[in-house]
């Protein structure tokens, strides 16, 4: 489904994401975005959490007319109508139209069905025989199957979906024009979907979202369409990335844990949580964290952040803060403090529980079915999808 982004011959080889080194957390420090705009980078776990939950740091003012440039090439996340870029009441209004579908209770109802999709995909993998590409046959297919079912996207063209996702989360892979064109096409798809479900509602998430939005005063059509598109992309891209990178770790440096993940769902759940914490989604090339803007002077971590400053919540560093977590990846230890992988505050990831469940069931199912699964090539020979906000293996040849 994806447009391939193999490395150009002159590009340096990349290490697996679990091998990336992390900065030592400390007080907020001043750095610069690729646009040259100064940015305060917040790295301690407690500070990141506070920053993300504090309404004096917002998203909307990153897009106000006086805002300094924060992206070289805007993508889907820079759409001012996106839920991510709304704040306060306007944001809550839109979020409430979808929140119910994503509570732990709602997601738990999908568990048997997601488990059956995992088994179907494993049957296919087994039938195809060793060796096989576990990305193409499994880690990419599962999240697409899940979001397609959730949103009622039967017959969705996976090529097109892949192209839209790649453009939506592009960092450097495409030009601004290419992204704009793909996002217009994607937006038309989203609008058509909204129109269809408004006319002929079903049991799916898009129908319930349209219904809730139409009942809620103040939700605009542009916000609704942007949300639908956002769900399609966020619903599979990040999960695919987490799963692919988790497999890279578990089939190389973390191979000791494979048998136990296959042996118990509870152990697989603990491992999923640790992997979500410790293995980042990407290289943070476009920004050193989740961006916010200070709407007034705010002190954080002992440093005064002046009004108007751009601030980055570096969840990746915070997820390795030695004040909170022990060194390394203690795969089966429960997390005493929730990680910041899904953020915190109003924009805490809507799909967090769905992602957790998919990762847990996928890892457990794969390890149980293929206890002797191994990588055919060395981790340093992995080809990566590059130029996107996320980084994951383009393919991963495994044998059993």
């Amino acid at each position, binding site marked *: 489904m994806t447009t391939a982004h193999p490395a150009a011959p002159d590009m340096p080889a990349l290490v697996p994401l679990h091998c990336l080194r992390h900065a030592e957390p400390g007080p907020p420090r001043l750095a610069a975005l690729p646009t040259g705009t100064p940015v305060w980078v917040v790295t301690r776990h407690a500070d990141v959490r506070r920053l993300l*939950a504090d309404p004096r740091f917002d998203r909307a003012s990153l897009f106000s007319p006086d805002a300094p440039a924060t992206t070289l090439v805007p993508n889907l996340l820079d759409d001012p109508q996106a839920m991510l870029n709304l704040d306060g009441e306007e944001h809550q209004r839109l979020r409430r139209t979808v929140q119910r579908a994503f*509570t732990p209770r709602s997601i738990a109802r999908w568990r048997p069905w997601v488990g059956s999709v995992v088994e179907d995909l494993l049957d296919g993998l087994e039938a195809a025989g060793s060796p096989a590409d576990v990305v193409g046959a499994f880690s990419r297919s599962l999240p697409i199957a899940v979001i397609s079912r959730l949103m009622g996207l039967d017959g969705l063209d996976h090529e097109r979906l892949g192209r839209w996702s790649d453009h939506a989360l592009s960092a450097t892979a495409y030009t601004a024009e290419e992204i704009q064109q793909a996002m217009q096409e994607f937006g038309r798809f989203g609008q058509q979907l909204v129109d269809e479900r408004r006319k002929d509602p079903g049991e799916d998430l898009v129908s319930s979202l349209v219904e809730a939005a139409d009942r809620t005063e103040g939700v605009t059509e542009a916000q609704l369409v942007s949300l639908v598109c956002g769900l399609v992309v966020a619903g599979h891209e990040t999960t695919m990335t987490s799963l692919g990178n988790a497999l890279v770790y578990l089939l190389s440096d973390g191979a000791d844990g494979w048998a136990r993940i296959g042996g118990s769902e509870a152990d697989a759940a603990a491992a999923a949580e640790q992997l979500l914490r410790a293995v980042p989604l990407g290289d943070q090339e476009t920004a050193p964290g989740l961006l916010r803007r200070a709407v007034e002077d705010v002190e954080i971590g002992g440093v005064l952040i002046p009004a108007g400053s751009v601030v980055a919540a570096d969840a990746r560093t915070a997820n390795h803060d030695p004040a909170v977590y022990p060194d390394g990846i203690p795969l089966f230890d429960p997390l005493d403090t*929730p990680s910041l992988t899904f953020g915190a505050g109003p924009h805490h990831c809507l799909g967090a529980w769905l992602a957790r469940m998919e990762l847990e069931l996928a890892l457990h199912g794969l390890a149980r079915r293929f206890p002797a699964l191994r990588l055919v090539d060395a981790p340093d020979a992995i080809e990566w999808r590059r130029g996107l906000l996320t980084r994951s293996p383009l393919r991963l040849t495994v044998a059993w």
Partner: protein
Amino acid sequence: MSAGAGDGTAGGLEVRVDRIRCVGTGLCAAAAPADVLLGPDGRAVPRHARAEASERLTEAAEMCPTEALTVHLAATGELVAPLD
């Protein structure tokens, strides 16, 4: 769902917040501002020791993305929201 609404539990509810699970989305405080507020650390805090049943309070519990906020009968501790 309108857990507890009008079933004689007036003033007999207790709002509990699991401060480890709470990620400070503020959805609860937006749904039931009379019962819940966000504290200085960005985590939810019950406004009063006791609460009265209301659809807003039930919604606050049902909306919580991490199920950190729960509503109980004060007398018995029985969970009244969120329910499946």
